């Protein structure tokens, strides 16, 4: 059976709403994906039947909440083919996962130590390292970006040197849609004993994957981009890597024992989960990943690739339109950034909005990448399986309107 986005759409209640009285063409999925009814139901069911604090309670609700929370961890482990559930640390999102990693990996580093990242990184995978540089005096080295919008891996040889301790790169750019090939990255890292951290915020929603096969030591992603709730994320780590990491935040649940004089910390993943965790959100994330694994999305990639290519090709027919990212579907996802000559990205996004077309305009939390392309921002259409040809048509009708509005500007 061919993939039918209508069958997906009916599971997402928001897609049937008419914000401002217009049909919704939601093409802002790279910022936040929408959430299916089944995930909302899972959260509601948890809150109304299993709500309690986890891990330390023996009463029935506490046992049920703990089971639900750990059950969600198991689902995440299955989604990313982890060796053990204990490799899955729940965080509050990609940002908090990377901050955790930067603090823990950075704790023992100092002047002379080097960290390799790229010009294409989202601020979430840039600012924590700038802050680490400030605190510890480490050196940051940046892989450049090609004209096509890919991280230029040919620079690895020059940049990854003996004192390199961490290579941290996005699995997929939230601006250009380009997927990073981690084979040379991992090889370069192994050669000098550096850890590999992967920002999987944009890639994790694409379906089950295997972080350790990728060669990652640590892998971060967010719930809200993978059809789950806000306020939950994952830092997966190889067991030995997590075991060697000091904690980030302190509080209840992450200690083995504590007195006024000293503290000993628990084992991963608990060591990294201080305080009451986002329990209902973990349950929601579990439901979302189960939904992704359920088979509903079989064929969705082909569908999204086709729509992506339609967008790219139609853009190429517009005079003054500039694509920022690869122009074909090789190793790229359905995130399409573009500039229109003389039109500000916010004006584009605003005019698209009057057609019910939701795209993002701006720097997409990737200022260095914008600078690389000599832009202050782009407009960005990003796809999910529920998007349709109608959404693409509406996008281009709206772009035509924008061009008309600004003609002679």
């Amino acid at each position, binding site marked *: 059976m061919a993939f039918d986005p209508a069958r997906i759409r009916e599971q997402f209640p928001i897609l049937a709403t008419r914000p401002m009285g217009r049909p919704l063409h939601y093409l802002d999925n790279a910022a936040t994906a929408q959430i299916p009814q089944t995930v909302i139901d899972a959260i509601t069911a948890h809150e109304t039947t299993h709500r309690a604090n986890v891990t330390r309670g023996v009463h029935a609700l506490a046992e049920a909440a703990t089971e639900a929370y750990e059950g969600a961890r198991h689902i995440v482990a299955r989604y990313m083919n982890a060796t053990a559930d204990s490799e899955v640390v729940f965080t509050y999102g990609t940002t908090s996962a990377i901050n955790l990693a930067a603090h823990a990996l950075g704790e023992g580093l100092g002047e002379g130590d080097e960290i390799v990242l790229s010009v294409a990184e989202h601020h979430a995978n840039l600012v924590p390292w700038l802050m680490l540089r400030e605190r510890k005096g480490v050196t940051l080295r940046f892989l450049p970006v090609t004209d096509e919008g890919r991280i230029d891996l040919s620079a690895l040889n020059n940049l990854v040197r003996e004192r390199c301790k961490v290579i941290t790169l996005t699995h997929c750019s939230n601006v250009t849609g380009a997927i990073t090939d981690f084979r040379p990255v991992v090889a370069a890292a192994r050669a000098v004993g550096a850890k590999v951290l992967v920002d999987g915020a944009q890639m994790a929603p694409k379906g089950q994957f295997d972080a350790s096969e990728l060669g990652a030591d640590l892998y971060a992603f967010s719930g809200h981009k993978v059809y789950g709730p806000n306020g939950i994320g994952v830092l997966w780590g190889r067991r030995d890597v997590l075991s060697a990491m000091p904690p980030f935040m302190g509080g209840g649940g992450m200690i083995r024992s504590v007195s006024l004089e000293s503290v000993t910390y628990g084992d991963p993943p608990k060591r990294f989960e201080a305080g009451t965790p986002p329990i209902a959100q973990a349950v929601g994330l579990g439901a979302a990943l189960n939904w992704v694994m359920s088979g509903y999305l079989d064929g969705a990639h082909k569908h999204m690739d086709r729509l992506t290519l339609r967008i790219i090709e139609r853009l190429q027919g517009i005079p003054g339109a500039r694509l920022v990212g690869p122009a074909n579907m090789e190793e790229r996802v359905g995130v399409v950034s573009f500039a229109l000559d003389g039109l500000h990205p916010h004006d584009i996004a605003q005019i698209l909005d009057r057609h019910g077309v939701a795209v993002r305009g701006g720097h997409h939390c990737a200022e260095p990448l914008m600078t690389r392309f000599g832009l202050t*921002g782009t407009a960005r259409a990003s796809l999910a399986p529920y998007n349709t040809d109608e959404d693409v048509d509406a996008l281009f009708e709206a772009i035509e309107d924008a061009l008309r509005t600004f003609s002679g500007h």
Partner: protein
Amino acid sequence: MGGKDIYENDIMELARAGSRPRYIDAPDGTATLDNPLCGDRVTIEMRRDKEGKIADIGHDVRGCALCQASAVALADTARGKSPVEINAALSALQKMLKDDHEHHEKAWPTLAAFRSVHGHKSRYECVLLPFRALLVAISEGEGGDASRP
């Protein structure tokens, strides 16, 4: 959430004029402000007359149509006005964006164009930025604190 269409003719006309920079001779003060939301940047120059009123205003906008339009409307609005009056104009503009009330139009007719932005909260700062920049330029011209107001 707003319902009206932002890009009405009034605004588009102002924006067209604002899309090209305009510099003035011998400015008494200059200020550049960024919009942290979108990385846009506005530079406003101003010269004052003997009474301290604004004699001329220049602008250089790297920003959206609203910001461009506002820079031009600012020049129209502020010429011949005292800093106190310009402060009042900024307040009126903020209230107009927030309340969509025609009251403010009468006092500042050029600003009426921005009523269509009402409800589009994410864009308010685009409109306000040139006004803020002028106030910083004035305070800078007075040797005052040039930090953002």
